[in-house]
C-alpha cells in the first residue's frame, strides 16, 4: 500500500514492461465481455422483455470479437497476454493459437444461434430464472477454456461452464430435470476432480502450470518422470467430459431433460470442450504418451462410435436419439486423436467444429419438429413433410450432414480421419468410421421416415417460430457452405493441427526471448 518508491529494482525480470498491442486484447476480451454482459443481464433479470435483445446483441459482439481474434491469429500467429503483467510462467497466460481461435469462433456462432432460438422459446419465467445470464456465463467458461494457456486456469473455466450448465439444466425445475441434473452433476464432478488431481500431480512434477512451459519441460525431462500416469488420468478425465465410451452414460441420462435450446447448446459446446482439452493435452503437452496410448484411445473411439450409433437406432424419443448421436460423433473425434498426425488431428478438429454446428442445429430441428407434432415420440409423430416442406428440407440436410454424406460439412472430416487411419494401417478404425456413418444414416433415416414422411396422425399444431427457423437456417447454411467450399477452413485446420503437433510458435509467443 506504500507509495511507489523509486528504487533500483529491475522490474523487467518480473514484469512485462512493454505495453501490449491493442490487438492482443482480443485474447482476453471474449471472456471479459461475457462476464461483463452476463453480470449486466443478471442485474436486469426482472426485465424479461429487455433480456433477449440485449443478450443477442452481446452474443453478436462476442462473435465479432472471436472473428477478429481468429483473423489476428491467422495473420500473426499465436497471441499471448499475461494477466497482471507478471512474466510467464508465474503470471496466468492466455495464449491463443489457431485451434483455440477456431473453437472459440464456432462456439460463439453456436451460442448466438442458441440465443436467437431462445428468444421465443424461453418464456418469461425461464428468463426471470436467468436463462440469458447463464448462457453468457456459460460462454465465459467455454471461451476461457479455449483461450487460456494455463492448465489450472483451464480447470477453472471448466468449473465455470459446469456451474452455468447446472443452472441451465434445471431451468424449469421439473422432477425429471432434477433427476437428469443430479446424474450429470455427479459424474461431471468426478471428472473434474480427476482433472484436478492430474493437475496437482503435474504441478508437483514440473513446478509450473503454464502449458507452453510444460510442453518444453516435458520434452526435456521426459525420461524418469511418471508422465504415463498423468496422461492416463487426463485421458480418463477428458474422456468423461467428452462422453467417450465407457464413461459416457451421463450424457443420455441428462441431455433429453432440459429445454431443447439448452440441449442444443450443450450438444454443441460442452463435449467439444472436453475434446479440445484432450487434444491440447495429449497432442501438445504429452505427444509421446499420446502415441503410446493411441491404441487404447482407438479402441475407446471405435466403441464410442458403434455404441453411440446403435443407441441412436434403439431410441424412439428423438431427443434421446440425438444424445446418442453426440456420443457417436465424439467417437469419430477420438479416432482422429488416436490416429494422430496432421490428417488425424486435423480430422478431429474439423469434425469437432462440424459437430458443434450440426448437433446444435439438429436439436433445434427436433425442437421445431416436436412443437409441430406435439410429441417427441417417433411412434406418434408424423406428417412433417406435408406440413412444413422447407423445414423438412433443412432437416434432411442436417440428417445427411450428421451421417457424413457429401456435399455437407460432415463428409470432409470423416474422409480425413478415415484416410489418416488407412495411411497408418488401422483399416479397422477406418472401417468403423464408415460403418458408423452407415448406422447413423439408419438412425436418422428412421426419424425421417417416421416423423417426416409418414402421413399425419396428430392434429395440426402452430407454425414454427420465426426466430427458431432463422437460427436453424443460418446453421444449415453454414454446414452447406463448409461442405461445398471447405478449402479456407481446411487450410486453417491443417495449420492448426501442425501447430499443435509442433508448438514452437506457441511457446515463442509465451516466451518471446526464450528465457525462462
Amino acid at each position: 500500500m506504500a507509495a511507489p518508491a523509486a528504487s533500483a529494482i529491475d522490474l523487467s525480470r518480473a514484469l512485462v514492461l512493454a505495453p501490449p498491442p491493442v490487438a492482443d486484447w482480443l485474447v482476453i476480451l471474449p471472456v471479459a465481455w461475457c462476464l461483463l454482459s452476463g453480470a449486466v443481464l443478471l442485474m436486469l433479470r426482472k426485465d424479461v422483455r429487455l433480456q433477449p435483445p440485449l443478450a443477442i446483441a452481446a452474443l453478436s459482439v462476442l462473435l465479432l470479437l472471436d472473428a477478429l481474434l481468429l483473423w489476428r491469429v491467422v495473420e500473426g500467429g499465436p497471441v499471448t497476454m499475461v494477466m497482471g503483467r507478471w512474466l510467464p510462467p508465474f503470471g496466468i497466460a492466455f495464449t491463443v493459437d489457431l485451434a483455440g481461435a477456431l473453437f472459440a469462433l464456432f462456439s460463439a456462432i453456436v451460442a448466438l444461434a442458441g440465443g436467437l432460438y431462445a428468444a421465443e422459446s424461453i418464456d418469461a419465467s425461464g428468463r426471470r430464472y436467468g436463462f440469458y445470464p447463464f448462457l453468457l456465463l456459460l460462454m465465459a467458461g467455454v471461451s476461457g477454456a479455449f483461450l487460456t494457456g494455463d492448465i489450472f486456469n483451464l480447470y477453472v473455466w471448466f468449473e465455470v461452464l459446469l456451474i452455468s450448465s447446472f443452472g441451465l439444466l434445471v431451468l424449469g425445475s421439473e422432477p425429471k430435470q432434477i433427476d437428469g441434473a443430479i446424474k450429470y452433476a455427479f459424474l461431471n464432478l468426478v471428472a473434474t476432480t480427476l482433472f484436478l488431481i492430474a493437475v496437482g500431480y503435474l504441478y508437483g512434477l514440473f513446478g509450473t502450470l503454464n502449458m507452453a512451459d510444460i510442453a518444453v519441460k516435458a520434452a526435456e525431462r521426459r525420461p524418469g518422470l511418471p508422465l504415463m500416469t498423468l496422461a492416463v488420468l487426463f485421458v480418463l478425465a477428458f474422456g468423461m467430459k467428452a462422453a467417450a465410451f465407457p464413461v459416457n452414460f451421463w450424457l443420455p441420462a441428462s441431455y433429453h431433460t432440459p429445454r431443447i435450446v439448452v440441449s442444443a447448446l450443450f450438444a454443441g459446446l460442452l463435449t467439444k470442450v472436453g475434446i479440445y482439452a484432450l487434444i491440447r493435452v495429449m497432442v501438445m503437452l504429452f505427444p509421446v504418451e499420446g502415441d503410446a496410448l493411441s491404441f487404447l484411445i482407438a479402441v475407446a473411439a471405435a466403441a464410442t462410435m458403434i455404441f453411440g450409433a446403435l443407441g441412436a437406432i434403439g431410441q424412439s424419443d428423438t431427443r434421446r436419439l440425438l444424445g446418442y448421436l453426440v456420443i457417436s460423433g465424439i467417437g469419430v473425434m477420438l479416432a482422429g486423436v488416436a490416429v494422430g498426425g496432421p490428417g488425424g488431428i486435423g480430422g478431429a478438429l474439423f469434425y469437432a467444429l462440424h459437430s458443434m454446428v450440426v448437433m446444435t442445429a439438429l436439436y433445434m430441428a427436433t425442437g421445431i419438429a416436436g412443437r409441430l407434432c406435439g410429441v417427441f415420440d417417433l411412434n406418434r409423430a408424423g406428417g412433417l413433410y406435408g406440413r412444413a416442406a422447407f423445414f423438412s428440407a433443412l432437416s434432411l440436410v442436417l440428417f445427411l450432414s450428421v451421417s457424413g454424406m457429401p456435399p455437407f460439412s460432415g463428409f470432409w472430416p470423416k474422409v480425413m480421419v478415415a484416410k489418416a487411419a488407412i495411411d497408418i494401417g488401422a483399416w479397422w478404425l477406418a472401417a468403423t468410421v464408415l460403418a458408423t456413418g452407415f448406422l447413423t444414416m439408419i438412425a436418422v433415416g428412421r426419424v425421417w421416415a417416421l416423423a417426416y414422411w409418414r402421413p399425419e396422425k396428430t392434429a395440426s399444431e402452430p407454425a414454427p417460430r420465426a426466430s427458431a427457423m432463422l437460427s436453424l437456417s443460418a446453421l444449415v447454411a453454414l454446414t452447406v457452405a463448409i461442405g461445398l467450399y471447405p478449402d479456407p477452413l481446411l487450410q486453417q485446420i491443417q495449420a492448426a493441427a501442425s501447430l499443435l503437433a509442433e508448438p514452437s510458435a506457441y511457446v515463442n509467443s509465451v516466451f518471446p526471448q526464450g528465457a525462462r
Partner: protein
Amino acid sequence: MNTVIFRTLAPFLTALMLLFSVFVLLRGHNEPGGGFIGGLIAASALAIYGIARGIRPVREALWFHPMTIAAFGLLLACIAGLVSMLAAVPFMTGLWIYPSLFGVEVPLSTVMLFDFGVYLVVVGAVTSIALALEREDI
C-alpha cells in the same frame, strides 16, 4: 431461537458484523482478510437478522435482490480488470491512484475495486442461498 433477547439484540449484532466485514475487507489488502471472508461475515450478519426477524425484513433492508448485488459485484470485478486497458498494461494489472482527502493521502487501486467486487459477489450469492434455505423452513 425466537426469544425476546435474540430478537432485540439481532439488529445491533447485524450492524456490528456488517461494520466488521467492511473492516476485514479493507484490511485484507496487506493482512489476513479480504473480499471473500468479508463477504462471508456480511452474509452471516444478514442471516442472523433473517433468523431473528424473518426473511421479509432482510429483503426490505437490502433494497436490492441479493442476486443483483452479486451481479453488480461481478461487474465491478470485470471493470477493475478492464481499467488496465486504458493504462496500456495487460489485463488485471494493479493500478494505483493517491488522491488526498482532507489532507490524508488515500491509496486507491483497481485491486481494491476487484476485492470489493468479490465482497459483493459473496454477500449476494451467500445471502441468496441463505434466504432461500430459510424460506423452506417456514
